[in-house]
């Protein structure tokens, strides 16, 4: 059963003296309970807008159309009090910069215990248990610590503990390892994988890093310029990508590993993102695509079933 269902979601930002910006255009996707869906895209793809929309955190400058349902509760147009209720037992979020989730003037223990029920002693015990769960064994000392006394990796673990303390049905992780050092990133990625397995978390992972996707995701949704271009199981996406953009992203990575070849040049995706105010009429990727045809420039491809999942392309298929 799908825990999260996004249907025909469009988000347009309108600012004073600026043309409206179409950040998301007709996006539909589902996340089943217990699965990890990676939302992949570059800056300007709309991936963070989608995460914020699902969390009910979009600001009022955005006009939102379509539906978002989390465990049967509608998010779009819901009253702020209803959203607050949902956040407590429904959706939690961790961000790229863990400091943004931590209050610098409160001790770690108080911040974790804040949203929990029960007596002070019970909440403290629960907070200390959560610190163990996120791999911070020295809980007694850490409960008394201030956020600035922790390293980046520890802060992200604490942010995770706070999120888990809300017993969320859906955890949204927005670039959770991007700001961390490589060796710390490796630790947090494994922690997320363990949590997901042990607690049966449903995880919406927002990232630009295909390495992070390979490590954690069950399924992948690729966003480009506000539209979903491909949705597939993670193995299928990496082995037989159907959309030229997905193929380009995978090919643009420098190879790495003991047997990886040394390439003279990397495969580039030429050009850059199209303007989204207003977006081009046809396929958003048309101007950068090697397979572009006249039809692509005029007619927007819809998401359709493909051999490996869903793809929005007039000329899908293996890399030519």
């Amino acid at each position, binding site marked *: 059963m799908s825990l999260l269902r996004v249907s025909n979601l469009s988000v347009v930002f309108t600012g004073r003296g600026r043309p409206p910006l179409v950040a998301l255009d007709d996006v539909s996707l589902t996340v089943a309970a217990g699965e990890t869906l990676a939302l992949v895209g570059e800056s300007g793809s709309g991936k963070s807008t989608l995460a914020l929309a699902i969390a009910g955190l979009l600001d009022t400058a955005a006009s939102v159309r379509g539906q978002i349902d989390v465990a049967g509760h509608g998010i779009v147009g819901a009253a702020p009090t209803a959203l607050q209720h949902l956040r407590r037992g429904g959706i939690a979020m961790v961000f790229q910069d863990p400091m943004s989730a931590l209050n610098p003037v409160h001790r770690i223990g108080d911040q974790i215990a804040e949203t929990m029920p029960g007596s002070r002693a019970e909440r403290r015990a629960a907070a200390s248990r959560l610190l163990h769960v996120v791999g911070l064994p020295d809980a007694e000392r850490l409960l008394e610590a201030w956020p600035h006394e922790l390293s980046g990796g520890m802060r992200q673990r604490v942010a995770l503990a706070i999120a888990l303390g809300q017993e969320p049905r859906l955890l949204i992780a927005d670039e959770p390892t991007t700001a961390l050092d490589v*060796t710390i990133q490796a630790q947090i990625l494994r922690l997320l994988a363990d949590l997901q397995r042990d607690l049966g978390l449903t995880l919406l992972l927002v990232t630009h890093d295909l390495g992070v996707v390979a490590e954690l995701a069950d399924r992948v949704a690729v966003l480009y310029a506000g539209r979903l271009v491909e949705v597939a199981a993670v193995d299928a996406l990496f082995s037989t990508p159907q959309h030229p953009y997905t193929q380009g992203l995978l090919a643009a990575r420098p*190879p*790495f590993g003991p047997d990886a070849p040394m390439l003279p040049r990397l495969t580039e995706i030429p050009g850059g993102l199209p303007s989204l105010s207003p977006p081009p009429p046809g396929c958003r990727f048309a101007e950068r695509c090697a397979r572009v045809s006249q039809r692509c420039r005029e007619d927007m491809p819809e998401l359709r079933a493909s051999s490996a999942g869903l793809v929005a392309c007039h000329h899908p298929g293996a890399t030519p």
Partner: protein
Amino acid sequence: MTPLLQLDTVTKAWRTPAGLVQAVRGVSLAVQAGETVALVGESGCGKSTLARLALRLTPVDAGRILFDGQDITHASERALTAIRPRLQMVFQDASAALNPRRTIGQAIDDPLRVHGRPNRAARVQALLGEVGLDASLASRFPHEVSGGQRQRVGIARALALDPAVVIADEPVSALDVSVRAQVINLMSSLARQRGLAMVFIGHDLAVVRHLADRIAVMHLGEIVEAAPRQRFWSQAAHPYSQALIASVPAATPAAARARGPAPLAGDLPSPLAPPPGCSFHTRCPRAIATCQHQSPPLIRLAPDHTARCHLLTHPVLDAAASTGHR
């Protein structure tokens, strides 16, 4: 052959409110003409400080900096004017390194104007072309172009004076994947065509592997290993280099599933209070008793492959320790 850029046991400490940070501790590094040397390491390892020292943007506490055999450690700004055109820099965040109030054309013209070069307008046009930017962008402001285009402007500005060495501090870290490949290709083809030497500072080992002829790994202000590319990727000797390589996220889901636990537990030690002995021993999975109190010597494993690690002087212990751990 005289190296183009040579750092000789360079040391630098920063005074901070929390105390003295030993940012760079006795680092020696030589860059030959035409080669790309990568400096890799995690935050606080001193790689960016090292770049600033090499460019004489900040004075060294001890040690020497030589450019083309000439000691520039204490050269005056006036004396540096002759060196600066040959030693240039590309920054991580082009929008911070470009003046928001000056057009792209002015930004590329600035170094030419400062050094009184002739035919400046034509040079600016040629440089824009060389980095793959349309000439019409010259009248735009930095915020009016994309991140990839801004970084190309930063590269064009660094190339304006025909440098021999370019120090690039995380030049592609802020760019999106699809644009990153474009800029990496641009940098490697420019380096080849112009015979540039490059110091590439980065944390993304896949990018480093693609670009660098030689790799130097920094940990808490020291170079703990340096080796040419073939040797480094196949037989990195220092446990920290090995851990960095093993920490790179998997390329495919299958590779990810085949993986063990994270290569390193625990946190980076604070540069405010580096651990005694080997600065890596607190996280090292193979540390022995010696590592805790004695700082490791520089071991030469091959003519151009060096590492600082006690395990390399104790081959028997090394084998025992590693089998015991696995």
